[in-house]
């Protein structure tokens, strides 16, 4: 058995290789269906990967822009799906698109001298939450992304590994080192002197 992802371009053939191939084949079929315009397949793909994309963006750009950028990322992925030959690489590929989109957005925001606005969709989010998020955003990228996936998106370590393509060991290390750093930065009391009183330590 071998998996062949054909989108009308030169493709590589992937020999079967145990359970990983089973997962890749299933994702490969979903990707093929999405490329063919299958809405159900797209909805499944979005459900599986949008939290990862949201986390990567939220770790970098103002919250109010994130939902819009998530759609931009999926649009970019949809239009470039033909260039993806290895379904195993989809998670990392999509993450790279999200990081690039965030970088572009920040550059454009700087050029336009826009001030960050942290009010996503008008929802009431308290200042302490944003203060903590700001601290998370200052963590090294590796830890930041993994922590946002875990603490904001509620993904398990295994889910993070499955979606990003990182090894479970790397995810576990990133989670624990990131959490250790976050604890140090949060300190024993409040995360920031400017936050509202919340009763939490």
């Amino acid at each position, binding site marked *: 058995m071998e998996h062949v992802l054909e989108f009308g371009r*030169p493709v*590589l*053939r992937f020999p079967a290789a145990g359970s990983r191939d089973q997962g890749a084949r299933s994702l490969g079929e979903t990707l093929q269906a*999405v490329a063919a315009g299958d*809405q159900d397949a*797209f*909805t499944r793909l*979005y*459900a599986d990967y*949008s939290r990862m994309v*949201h986390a990567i963006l*939220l770790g970098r750009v103002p*919250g109010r822009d*994130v*939902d819009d950028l*998530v*759609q*931009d990322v*999926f*649009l*970019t992925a*949809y239009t*470039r799906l033909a*260039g*993806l*030959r*290895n379904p*195993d*690489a989809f998670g*990392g*590929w999509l993450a*790279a698109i999200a*990081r*690039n*989109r965030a*970088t572009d957005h920040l*550059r454009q925001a700087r050029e336009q001298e826009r001030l960050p606005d942290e009010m*996503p969709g008008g*929802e009431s*989010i308290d200042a*302490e*939450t944003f203060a*903590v*998020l700001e601290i*998370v955003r200052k963590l*090294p*990228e590796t830890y930041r992304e993994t922590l946002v996936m*875990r*603490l*904001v*998106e*509620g993904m*398990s*370590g*295994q889910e993070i590994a499955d979606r990003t393509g990182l090894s479970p060991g790397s995810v*576990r290390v990133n*989670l624990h080192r990131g*959490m250790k750093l*976050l604890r140090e930065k949060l300190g024993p009391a409040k995360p920031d002197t400017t936050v509202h009183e919340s009763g*939490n330590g």
Partner: protein
Amino acid sequence: MDNDYLWDPSAPPDPEVERLEQMLGRLRSTTPAPSIADLVRRMPGHDVLRWRTARFLGPALAAAAAVVLMIAASWQSMRTLHLAPGWDVASLEGQPRIGSAIVADIGRLAVGQTLTTDASSRARLDISTLGAVTVETNSRVRLVATRADHFRLALERGTLHAVIVAPPRQFVVDTPSSRATDLGCAYMLHVDEDGTGLLSVTAGWVSFESKGRESFVPAGASARTDPDHGPGTPRYDVTDQRFRDELDFVDEGPRMEGYASALAYVLEHASVHDAMTLWHLIPRVAPSDRGAVVDALAARAPMPTSVSRDAVMRLDKAALDQWWDSLGLQDASWWRLWKSELGK
């Protein structure tokens, strides 16, 4: 399972992590999946195109739309030109530098510029149509070229990890002793100060080439390189250390002391899995040793009936390719193709 709530949310909760989850979880996205049609409507120019074709639009509005399209096209063209000559750089740790300038968060590496990391800094190069390249500590990378279908770096020293999603053969990394051409893959490339290096492939294939030698390195395999000999013979990483050491001796060439015994060891201890390695050795060993290598490969991967031993001994490319194809690794045609296209 292992009582690690940070890893497994179904484990007994860690109160502090749980509190952060509850707080930050309010930022979680609840936006449902858009329809593909909605997504496509976000594409620049989509509405303009749709309006242009609507029956109720008068000629004046159509002309206006055309002007908008021209402006949009010009803007896109200018934007592409603006972005084309460089790559985005993100600092991952410490203070990487572009030239003498520190990259605090993000920066841009222009063609001809060099990105340098020290013992405590790392950086990532991003280009959305290509993939990402992580530059590890103590490394020096120069951007040689970036065009729509050709991206070239020079790794002068240090280590990089590349995850490439662009079509095969668009991404090339020069090292002091070999050229690594991506054939759709993820890999690690390391170069020491003296120009020696190591390529390890984790997914797909990489071509490693210099001085008329070429190695096609599959996932799970590595190849050394040095300025005197170019790329070494690829070997799977699961082979034992002795086998790899002896293969290194063979790569030094027939004049190297111990070459004969090293070759004998490799031919005797190669497994069926090492057919890929033996195939690469056929043109590399001395002509007087070629027959032994051919026999060793034939014992592990029978020569196709359409291939003659004489043709292989003459290093007939078609014969070698047919034998390669029979190894069940990948058809030779596609990686031969990249060379012919590069040579255009």
